[in-house]
C-alpha cells in the first residue's frame, strides 16, 4: 500500500511538465474532464434557457411585435418592412423541441452526472483517477461533437427538429409533416447517438470505478450517498439508453430508407395519399406506438438519471450543514435502489391514452403509484435529519433545502398523474409541465447549484461569494415557484402543451393573465442566473482562498489540498475507518469525525 502511494507520488512529479493541450484540453484527469463537462453543460443551459424565454414571451403575448428579435432571428419570424414581426408556428415547435432535448440530455444529464460524477467519484472513494482515464477523455470528446451537431440543426434551411423532444412518429418520420422533420430531425438523431455513446462510456467508467477502486476501508455501506446515486445512475444509463438507440436507428431508416418500423399503411399527408409509383401504400403495418415504448423505456429511467444525483447531493449537504448524521442511511440507499429499479417498469404511464391496450395501462399504473413510497421515505428521512440538528444556512444548504421543497411539490403532483383516470384530463396539459419542471428539472438544477457551491472550493481553491450566492438562491427559488407552480392551475383548466397560441381556444382565453405572470417570473428567473455566472467566474479568480476543508465535512475529498494535485493525494491515499456521517458524535472533541481518522476509544469506527 505504502509503496504504491509513493510510487504514484513519484509518477506525479514525473508528469508535471506537460504541454497545455495534454493537461487542460485532451486531459485524462477526471477533474479536468469533469470541469469540461460542467462548463459545456452550463453553456448549453444558456442556450436552452434562452429558447425557454422565447417560448414564454410567445405564450404570454402571442400578438406581440418581436421587433429586433425578429430581425436577429430571421429563420423564426416573419415581418419587417413596416409589418410587425410575428413568430412562425413551426419555429415555436423547434423552440420547445430543442429546449427539451438540450435541457434533458445535454444539460441535466450532463452537469450532475458527467460533471460532478467525474469530479467527485475518485475523490470520494479514495482513488487516483477513474478506472479508464482514456475512455473518460474519449467520452467528453464524443459529447462535445454531439452538442455541436444538435446546435447546428438550427442553421439548416428547414430548421431544427420540431416534433417535440419526444420525436413521436409519424410527425418525426415523415419529412413533409413539419419543416423541422427534414434535415433537422436527422441531425437530432445523430446528435443523440453521439450523446448516448458518450454517456455509455461514462457509465462504464463510473460503475467500474465505484465497484473496483475504493480505498481500503471504504466498503459500499461507507460510501457517501452521492456515490450511491452515481452508481445507480450508471446502471440506469447502461441498461436504458440502448432502447433509444434502437428506436433512433429505426426512425432513421423510416425517414431515409423507406422502411416501415413506425409508419403504418394508408398515410395521407396534405390531402395526398403516400403511395408508391405502382399505387400501393408507401408504408406498411408499422406502429407509431412502438416508438413510444422504446422511447419511454429510456425516457423514464432518464428522468431518474437527472434526479438521483440531486437526491444524493442533498443528503450529503444536509448532513454537513446540520452537523448531524443523515437519518436512515441504509434506507436511503434502499430507497434510491427501489426508485432505480421501479423506474424500469413504469414507462407506460406516459402512454395511458396512447391507444395501447388498457390492461397494459393498469400494469403501469401499479409501479407508478408505488414509486411514491421510496420517494416519501426519502423526504421523511431528510426531515428527520433536520430534527434536533444545528442548521447552518450556507449557500449549499439553501440549495439542498430547495431540493427538498421541490421534491415534495413536484413529487405529489405525480400521484395525481399516476392514476390513469385523472391522467385522461391532465395528460398533455401544463399540469404535466408543472410536475416535471418542479421535480425533475428543479431538483436537478438546485442539486447542481448546491453541488457547485459545495465543491467549487475543492475544484478551484477559492470560495464562491456567499452573499451573491444567497441572493442568487432567493431570486431563483422564488421565481422558480412563480414560474412553474401556476402551471398546475392552468393545466387543470385544460391548457394543453406545445401550443403556439392558446387563445384560439375559447376555454383558454381567460388564462392569459396567468401565462403573463408565469412569463414575468420566468424572465426574472432567467435574468437571476447572471448572478451565478458572475459569481462563478469572479470567484474562480478573485474568491477568498479555500483551505483543505472549508466546510468541516467528513468525506475523503476534504483530506486533500484545494485544488487536488494530479493523482488526488500528494502522499498515500487515506484509509477509511467509518461512514461519512459522523457529525456531533457524543464524547468527541469536535463536532465531526472524518472518514479517515483512526478509530479510538472516544470515537470508534463505524
Amino acid at each position, binding site marked *: *500500500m505504502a*509503496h*504504491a502511494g509513493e*510510487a*504514484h507520488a513519484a*509518477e506525479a512529479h514525473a508528469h508535471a511538465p506537460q504541454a497545455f493541450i495534454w493537461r487542460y484540453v485532451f486531459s485524462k484527469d477526471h477533474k479536468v474532464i469533469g470541469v469540461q463537462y460542467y462548463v459545456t453543460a452550463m453553456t448549453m443551459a444558456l442556450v436552452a434557457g434562452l429558447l425557454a424565454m422565447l417560448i414564454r414571451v410567445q405564450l404570454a403575448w402571442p400578438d406581440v411585435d418581436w421587433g429586433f428579435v425578429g430581425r436577429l432571428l430571421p429563420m423564426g419570424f416573419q415581418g419587417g418592412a413596416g409589418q410587425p414581426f410575428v413568430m412562425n408556428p413551426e419555429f415555436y415547435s423547434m423552440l420547445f423541441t430543442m429546449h427539451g432535448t438540450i435541457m434533458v440530455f445535454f444539460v441535466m444529464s450532463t452537469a450532475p452526472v458527467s460533471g460532478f460524477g467525474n469530479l467527485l467519484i475518485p475523490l470520494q*472513494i479514495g482513488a*487516483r483517477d477513474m*478506472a*479508464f482515464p482514456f*475512455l473518460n477523455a474519449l467520452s467528453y470528446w464524443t459529447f462535445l461533437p454531439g452538442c455541436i451537431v444538435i446546435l447546428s440543426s438550427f442553421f439548416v434551411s428547414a430548421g431544427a427538429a420540431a416534433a417535440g423532444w419526444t420525436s413521436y412518429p409519424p410527425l418525426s418520420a415523415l419529412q413533409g409533416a413539419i419543416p423541422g422533420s427534414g434535415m433537422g430531425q436527422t441531425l437530432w438523431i445523430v446528435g443523440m447517438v453521439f450523446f448516448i455513446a458518450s454517456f*455509455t462510456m461514462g*457509465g*462504464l*467508467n463510473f460503475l*467500474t470505478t465505484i465497484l*473496483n*477502486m*475504493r480505498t481500503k*476501508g*471504504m*466498503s*459500499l*455501506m*461507507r460510501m457517501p450517498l452521492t456515490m450511491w446515486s452515481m452508481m445507480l445512475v450508471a446502471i440506469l444509463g*447502461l*441498461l*436504458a*439508453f*440502448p*432502447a433509444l*438507440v*434502437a*428506436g433512433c*436507428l429505426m426512425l432513421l*431508416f423510416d425517414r431515409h*430508407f423507406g*422502411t*416501415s*418500423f413506425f409508419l403504418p399503411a394508408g398515410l395521407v399527408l396534405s390531402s395526398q395519399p403516400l403511395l408508391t409509383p405502382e399505387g400501393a401504400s408507401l408504408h*406498411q*403495418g*408499422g*406502429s407509431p406506438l*412502438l416508438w413510444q*415504448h*422504446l422511447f419511454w*423505456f429510456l425516457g423514464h429511467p432518464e428522468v431518474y438519471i437527472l434526479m438521483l444525483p440531486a437526491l444524493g447531493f442533498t443528503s450529503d449537504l444536509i448532513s454537513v450543514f446540520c452537523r448531524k*448524521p443523515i437519518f436512515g*442511511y*441504509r434506507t436511503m440507499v434502499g430507497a434510491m435502489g427501489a426508485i432505480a429499479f421501479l423506474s424500469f417498469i413504469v414507462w407506460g404511464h406516459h402512454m395511458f391514452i396512447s391507444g395501447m391496450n388498457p390492461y397494459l395501462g393498469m400494469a403501469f399504473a401499479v409501479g407508478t403509484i408505488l414509486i411514491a413510497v421510496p420517494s416519501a421515505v426519502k423526504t421523511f428521512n431528510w426531515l428527520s435529519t433536520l430534527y434536533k440538528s444545528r442548521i447552518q444556512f450556507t449557500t449549499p444548504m439553501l440549495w439542498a433545502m430547495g431540493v427538498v421543497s421541490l421534491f415534495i411539490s413536484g413529487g405529489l403532483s405525480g400521484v395525481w398523474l399516476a392514476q390513469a383516470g385523472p391522467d385522461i384530463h391532465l395528460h398533455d396539459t401544463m399540469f404535466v409541465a408543472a410536475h416535471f419542471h418542479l421535480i425533475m428539472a428543479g431538483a436537478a438544477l438546485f442539486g447542481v447549484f448546491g453541488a457547485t457551491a459545495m465543491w467549487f472550493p475543492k475544484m478551484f481553491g477559492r470560495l464562491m461569494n456567499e452573499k451573491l450566492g444567497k441572493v442568487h438562491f432567493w431570486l431563483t427559488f422564488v421565481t422558480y415557484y412563480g414560474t412553474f407552480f401556476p402551471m398546475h392551475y392552468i393545466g387543470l383548466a385544460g391548457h394543453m402543451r406545445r401550443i403556439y397560441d392558446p387563445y384560439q381556444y375559447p376555454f383558454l382565453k381567460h388564462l392569459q393573465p396567468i401565462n403573463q405572470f408565469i412569463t414575468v417570473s420566468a424572465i426574472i428567473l432567467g435574468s437571476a442566473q447572471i448572478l451565478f455566472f458572475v459569481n462563478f467566474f469572479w470567484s474562480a479568480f478573485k474568491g477568498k482562498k479555500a483551505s483543505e476543508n472549508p466546510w468541516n465535512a467528513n468525506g475523503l475529498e476534504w483530506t486533500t489540498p484545494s485544488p487536488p494535485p494530479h493523482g488526488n493525494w500528494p502522499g498515500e491515499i487515506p484509509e*477509511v*475507518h*467509518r461512514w461519512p*456521517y459522523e457529525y456531533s458524535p457524543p464524547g468527541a472533541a469536535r463536532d465531526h469525525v472524518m472518514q479517515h481518522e*483512526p*478509530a479510538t476509544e472516544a470515537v*470508534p*469506527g*463505524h
Partner: protein
Amino acid sequence: MSTGVLQQKPGAGGTLGRGPGEAAPGDGGGDGAPGIIGDTARFGLMAFLGTISMLFIGFTSAYLIRRTSLDWRPLRAPGILWLNTAVLLTSSVTLEAARRRLRGWDLRGVMSWVAATGALGVLFLVGQVVAWRALGAQGVFLATNPHSSFFYMLTGLHGLHLLGGLVWFLAVLVQVRRMAYVPGEDGLRLFATYWHFLAGLWLYLLFLLFVL
C-alpha cells in the same frame, strides 16, 4: 502501478463490510477489500456487453411486436448464412486454440491461431455481404418488407460490432507479433470474451430471424 494495489482478490474479507450502527471496538470493522470484481478491464467489458445486449433486446421486442402485423412476409434465409455461421463458430474455436497455446508457452502457435481467427472473421463479413447481395438479386432490399428490414438492420449492426472486433483484432495481432503477451498467462481473455459474445449474438439473431 497506481491501480495495482487497488486490485484485490474478489470477495476478500466480505466486501460489504458492516453498516452504520455496527461499530466494533478498535478499527471500525470495515474490511480492506475495495475491489469486488477483481479484473477491472473485464468488468468494464462485461458491463459494455450488457449494454449491447440491451440494444438487441430492444430490437427483439420491436421485432416481436412488428411481426404481428398483417403485412409480415417471412423471409427465407439465404443459404450462405449457414456457411457464414460455421465460419464464425470456427473462428471462436481457433481463438480458443490460440489462448491455449499462450497458456502453454507456444508463442509461434499463438500467432498462427490468432491470424486464423482474424482471417475467419474477415471471411464471415465477406460472406455476409454475399448474403445481402443474394437477397438483393431476388429483389429483397431493406425496405421491401418488415422482415427484410429487420434482417438487414440486425445483420448490419452485428457486422458493425464485428468490424469493431476486427479493429481490436489488429491491435491484438500487433501485440502478439511484439510478443507483448506474457506466456503462461491468459492475455487473450478480454478479446476472446468479446469475440465469443459476437458469435453467441449471431446465433441468437439467426434464431430470432429464422427459427422463432
